[in-house]
């Protein structure tokens, strides 16, 4: 009997010997899995999960995708807005550059129309305080080119004076006379001449 008891005790001890470290081992393993849990939930797509977790992850993914799209859309909208603003600024600049003001023959008096245009130009110059603009004075081919060089100078200067009176810094408005040397229309008729008697603006 005693021998039987002894064997039992030995078995228990042995099993304890085996089980305890096994338990220890198990617990340490369990700890590890617990520790790694958060990482696994953070990457639901990567690790296959139990069915319940899978659905939640899909939802989260969809949400993230939507957010990403919205973010992209916002950026795109911002870009479009910036583009539109740029276009508008370009259009304003083009209008500024392309809209010449015109004079009567042998005259450097600003007409009413010319003054209206110059007020718009002054507005643009206020909106674009860094812009420097060269005012070119031009004449038609009639008359003599020496006198026309002086007349073109007068035209550029009168335009400058008008803009300076509207508060634009004279330092931003250099002038140059081309006299009759640079016609926009090379025709020899009143239509061409009228187009050539002008002040033209070049944004530097």
């Amino acid at each position: 009997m005693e021998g039987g008891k002894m064997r039992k005790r030995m078995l228990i001890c042995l099993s304890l010997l085996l089980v305890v470290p096994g338990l220890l081992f198990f617990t340490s393993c369990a700890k590890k899995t617990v520790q790694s849990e958060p990482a696994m939930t953070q990457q639901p797509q990567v690790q296959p999960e139990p069915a319940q977790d899978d659905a939640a992850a899909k939802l989260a993914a969809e949400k993230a995708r939507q957010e990403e799209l919205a973010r992209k859309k916002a950026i795109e909208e911002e870009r479009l807005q910036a583009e539109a603003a740029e276009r508008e600024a370009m259009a304003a600049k083009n209008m500024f550059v392309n809209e010449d003001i015109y004079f009567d023959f042998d005259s450097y008096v600003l007409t009413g129309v010319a003054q209206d245009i110059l007020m718009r130009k002054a507005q643009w110059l206020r909106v674009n305080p860094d812009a420097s603009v060269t005012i070119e004075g031009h004449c038609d081919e009639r008359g003599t080119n020496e006198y026309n060089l002086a007349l073109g100078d007068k035209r550029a200067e009168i335009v400058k004076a008008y803009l300076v009176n509207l508060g634009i810094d004279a330092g931003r408005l250099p002038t140059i006379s081309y006299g009759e040397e640079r016609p926009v229309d090379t025709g020899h008729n009143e239509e061409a001449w009228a187009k050539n008697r002008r002040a033209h603006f070049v944004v530097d």
Partner: protein
Amino acid sequence: MIAGYKRKAVCLTGVLILFYLMSGVGRADYTYINISNPFLRKVPIAIPVFKNLSENSVDARMARQAADMLSDALEFTGYFKVLDRGAFLIKPGLMAIKMPEINFKNWTAIGSELLITGAYSIHDNQLEIELRLFDTFKEKLLVGKRYKGGKNDRRKMIHRFCGEVIFLLTGKHGLFNSKIAFVSTGSGNKEIYACEFDGYHPEQITRTKHITLSPAWSSDNKWIAYTSFLNGKPDLFIRNLRQKRGSIVARKGINATPAWVPGKFSLAATLSFSGDQEIYLLTGSGKIIKRLTYSRGIDVSPSFSPDGKQMAFVSQRGGTPQIYIKHLQTGQVTRLTFEGRYNTQPSWSPAGDKIAYSAMEDGHVNIRVINTDGRGVMQLTRDAGNNECPTWSPDASMIAFSSTREGLSRIYVMTAYGTEQRRLLTLPGEQSNPQWSSIIANN
């Protein structure tokens, strides 16, 4: 930037006066050319082909070429009717070139009043030409000269004799040694060019590749001033033609319309740095000596009287561009032109008595001349496009100008009375803005 101004140094190795004026023959006792109206009647003149005095007959074409050159130069002045050689009574080979061999009856019979005979010889590339002018009715030698030089000096020798002929007949030095500067667009940009008085040998002077305008010769013809956009705006360039030096007036605004003071290294020009276009007197190196005009509005295009005491200019002070004269000593300014609403580009005659200018009326520009007292306005061009920028020959006998009468703008010449208008030269592009030089000094 400035092209080498290739004025060939023509050195006549010696100019020998062979013959003297016959005593008793002078301008006083016989009027060949009526100074008060020199172009009313042309003087008939015979110029036979030259005689070859060389032993060999090398370059026999020279005989005709040289005679033609002489004929063309004299005909250019408008004073002469050069008779057709086909009507001559004497065969070219038998032509006598001096007295007493010349039978003047053969020349008076065909209506010739003057006769020029020429002879030449060539030895070792040295050319010798002798030329004689005769009065065929009086049977007198008026002037005879012998010239020696290189073969390429032929044109220069002949033109020097033409100068003698004109001086004898009119009492004035001619225009044969002068040049005409002008603007041409042939290179794609307006650049300054210059040719000889008759349009011969045009040369490009500036190569700015930008708009370049308004050439002006100094009295000694060594300097030329002009306006160029080379640096982006109209600046005034003052250049020595031979030495490639000079200065630039590059003030704010325009630096334009230069005109040299006769006989001085000084010029007037329009500057607008003050905000208003005014005429200033500058040194030849471009420094301001003083301001010459004082009026709001455009003042431009100075032109000096030959004595330098007065200056014609354009001013808009009366509302329209008109020509005014400033007396530089008293400062007094008087208005010269009252006809029309657009009178510009005054050019003071080297004779002092008249001013040529461009007048716009009914949309067309034409050349007019006016006495310096404001009387005697004469229109010299009409019904022939736009005619601008008159400039006098140094002897005041002719006026060069630009005209669009044949479509494109070209340079034309006419007598000071508006007769014999003809094109001076044809180059690619358009030509404008002629400026006649003084007589180039002999060297």
